[in-house]
C-alpha cells in the first residue's frame, strides 16, 4: 500500500540526466545555461503567470505543428496574432516514438521536396538553439503537445528552447499513444520529466505541467479520466511540480461535462491538499471534442462554437481548440487562426459568470465522484513501495481500464456506451473497482435508451461517431 509522498522525490538524477543530455541531438544542453535562459525569457511565458492574469474568459490554445522551421515560425506568429493565449508546438509522431533518425531523415526530405512528410514539428531534430528563435518576441506560454512515452530528451530540448509548459504524463501519454511501451518505464521516464520541470522552477517562474485527460478520446467514462488526472497531478507534485493543469475532453453530454469539471476541480484540490501539496496550484483545461469529427466544415464549425460555449460554462482556465479541418487532415495555419477567432468570439458573447447546474448534473457529479473515490482508494491500497508502483499495478489489475487504448497492458474489459442524454455509461466495469451500487446506477441510467443488448458494430460506431449525425 503506497500513497503519494513528498519524500518519493527522485534523487540521484544526475547520472541518467548526463546520459540523456549526451545524446548528439541534445547539442550540448547544460542545465545551468538553460536555467539562465529561462530566467531571461518574458515572464508571461510561464503558464501560471498567464493564468493568474487572465480575465473572466478561459485562455485559448489552438493546435499546430509543421515540420519545417520557417513554416513553424510563421504558424507561431500567425496563431499568436490571431489571439491565441497559449501557443502550441505539436510534435511529429516519429519523434514521439524516439525515432529521431527517421524524423530527421523525413525532415530533410520535406525540406528538399517542399512537401510535408511529418505530421508535426521534429523538435529534437531541429534542436534547441534553432527552436529558441521560433519564439523571440513571444510573451505567451508555449505548450509542448506530443504523446511521447519517453519524453526525457524531448522535454530537455523543449525546456532549453524556452518552452515552459510540458503536456503529458506516465499514463496519459502511454496508454492512448503506444502499443507496447512498458508502462513502468514510462512512469519512471515521466518522473524524470516532472523532476527536471521542478528543478527548473523558481518561485515566480514555475515550469508548468499539464496532463492529457481525453486519453483515447473515445467513450472514456469520466471517472476513469478523472482518476488518471488526479494520479498524474499527485505524481508530479511528488516530484516537486508546483504548477499543474488537469484536463478532460468534451464528453458529448453537457450534463456530464459540467459534472466532470466540477468533480475534477474539487477532487484534484482535495487530494493534493490531503497529501501535503497545498502549494501546488491546479488549473482546469477543457479539450474541445477529441473524437471523430464531422467532415462538413459547417458542422465542424458549429461543434467548435458549441464546445467553446461549454468551456466557459464549466469554468475552464484554458480551452484547447479544434479546427474545421479536424476530420480532413492537419489544418493549415489560416484554418487554425480562424478557429481561435471563432472560439474567442463565442467566449466573449456567451461569457457566463458562474457554472450552471441541474438535478441531473448533481446526480451525475455525485456518481462520478463516488466512482473516482472508489478507484483511487483501491489504488492506494495496492501493494508497492511508492505511489507510482501502485499505479502501475492498477493497470495490471485492470483497476484502471481505458477504452480503445492500443496498449497491450490495458485490460480492455471495461465496456461503455452512451445513454439517452449522450452521457457515457459504464456497461461492464470489468475489474475497475467501482461499487456495486454505482455500477448498478450506471446500468440503470443506460436503460433509458431502451434495449441496446444487440450490440452491433453499427451501434458502437454510432456512439463513437456521435458528432457525425
Amino acid at each position: 500500500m503506497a500513497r503519494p509522498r513528498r519524500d518519493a522525490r527522485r534523487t540521484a538524477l544526475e547520472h541518467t540526466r548526463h546520459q540523456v543530455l549526451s545524446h548528439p541531438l541534445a547539442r550540448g544542453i547544460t542545465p545551468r545555461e538553460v536555467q539562465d535562459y529561462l530566467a531571461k525569457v518574458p515572464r508571461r511565458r510561464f503558464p501560471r503567470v498567464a493564468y493568474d492574469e487572465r480575465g473572466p474568459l478561459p485562455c485559448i490554445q489552438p493546435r499546430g505543428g509543421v515540420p519545417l522551421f520557417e513554416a513553424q515560425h510563421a504558424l507561431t506568429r500567425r496563431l499568436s496574432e490571431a489571439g491565441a493565449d497559449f501557443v502550441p508546438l505539436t510534435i511529429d509522431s516519429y519523434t514521439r516514438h524516439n525515432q529521431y533518425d527517421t524524423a530527421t531523415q523525413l525532415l530533410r526530405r520535406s525540406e528538399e521536396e517542399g512537401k510535408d512528410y511529418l505530421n508535426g514539428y521534429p523538435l529534437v531534430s531541429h534542436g534547441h538553439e534553432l527552436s529558441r528563435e521560433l519564439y523571440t518576441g513571444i510573451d505567451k506560454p508555449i505548450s509542448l503537445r506530443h504523446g511521447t512515452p519517453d519524453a526525457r530528451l524531448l522535454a530537455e530540448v523543449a525546456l532549453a528552447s524556452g518552452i515552459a509548459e510540458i503536456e503529458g504524463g506516465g499514463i496519459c501519454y502511454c496508454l492512448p499513444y503506444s502499443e507496447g511501451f512498458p508502462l513502468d518505464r514510462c512512469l519512471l521516464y515521466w518522473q524524470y520529466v516532472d523532476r527536471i520541470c521542478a528543478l527548473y522552477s523558481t518561485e515566480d517562474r514555475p515550469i508548468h505541467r499539464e496532463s492529457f485527460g481525453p486519453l483515447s478520446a473515445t467513450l472514456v467514462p469520466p471517472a476513469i479520466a478523472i482518476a488518471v488526472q488526479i494520479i498524474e497531478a499527485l505524481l508530479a507534485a511528488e516530484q516537486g511540480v508546483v504548477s499543474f493543469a488537469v484536463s478532460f475532453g468534451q464528453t458529448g453530454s453537457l450534463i456530464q461535462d459540467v459534472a466532470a469539471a466540477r468533480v475534477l476541480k474539487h477532487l484534484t484540490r482535495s487530494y493534493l491538499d490531503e497529501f501535503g501539496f497545498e502549494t501546488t496550484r491546479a488549473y482546469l483545461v477543457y479539450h474541445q471534442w477529441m473524437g471523430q469529427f464531422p467532415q462538413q466544415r459547417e458542422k465542424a464549425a458549429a461543434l467548435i462554437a458549441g464546445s467553446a460555449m461549454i468551456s466557459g460554462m464549466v469554468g475552464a482556465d484554458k480551452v484547447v481548440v479544434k479546427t474545421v479541418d479536424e476530420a480532413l487532415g492537419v489544418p493549415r495555419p489560416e484554418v487554425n487562426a480562424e478557429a481561435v477567432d471563432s472560439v474567442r468570439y463565442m467566449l466573449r458573447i456567451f461569457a457566463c459568470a458562474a457554472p450552471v447546474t441541474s438535478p441531473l448534473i448533481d446526480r451525475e457529479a455525485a456518481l462520478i465522484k463516488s466512482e473516482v473515490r472508489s478507484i483511487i482508494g483501491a489504488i492506494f491500497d495496492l501493494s508497492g513501495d511508492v505511489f507510482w508502483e501502485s499505479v502501475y499495478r492498477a493497470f495490471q489489475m485492470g483497476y484502471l481500464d481505458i477504452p480503445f487504448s492500443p496498449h497491450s497492458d490495458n485490460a480492455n474489459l471495461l465496456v461503455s456506451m452512451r445513454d439517452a442524454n449522450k452521457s457515457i455509461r459504464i456497461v461492464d466495469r470489468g475489474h475497475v473497482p467501482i461499487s456495486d451500487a454505482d455500477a448498478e446506477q450506471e446500468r440503470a441510467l443506460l436503460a433509458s435508451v431502451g434495449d441496446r443488448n444487440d450490440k452491433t458494430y453499427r451501434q458502437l460506431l454510432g456512439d463513437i461517431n456521435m458528432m457525425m449525425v
Partner: protein
Amino acid sequence: MEKVCAGRVVVGVIGDDIHVVGNRIMQLALEESGFQVFNLRTRNRPEHFCQAALEVNADAVFVSSLNGEGEYWCADFRRQFADVGLGGILLYVGGNVVVGKRAMADVVSLFTGYGFDRVYHQQPDIGVAIADLLEDLKRGKAQA
C-alpha cells in the same frame, strides 16, 4: 446455426500510427459479416502484413493509416506481396491515408499506383468496403 466463413482478412494499422478505434470497429464489422479476422493492431510495417497473410492464407489485407504515414510506408506494398508469391491478394487501404489535405482523386490514384485494389480515404462507414469485398471475392471465385 454454423456460419460459413466469408473469407480470411488480415487487418492492421501501418507505420507508427496508434489510432486503434477504427481498427477495433473493423474487426467487429468484418466478423459480423462472417469473415475470419486476423488483427495485427497498431504499429506495423508492410512485412508484418505480408507474413500474416502468408501464415493465415488470407483472401484480403485491410491496411489502415490514420495519421497519414500510409503514404510513406505503402509505396512498395504490392511488390512486397508479389515477392512472397501473394501477387493476387486483395489489398485495401483506408483511414486518413495521407498527411494533410489532398484531393480525393489524387489520393486514390497514389494508392492504386502503390498496387492497392481499393482506397477508402476518409470514409467513415466501413460497411461500404465490406460490401465491395464480398463483391470482389465473388468475382475472384468466378474468374478462378
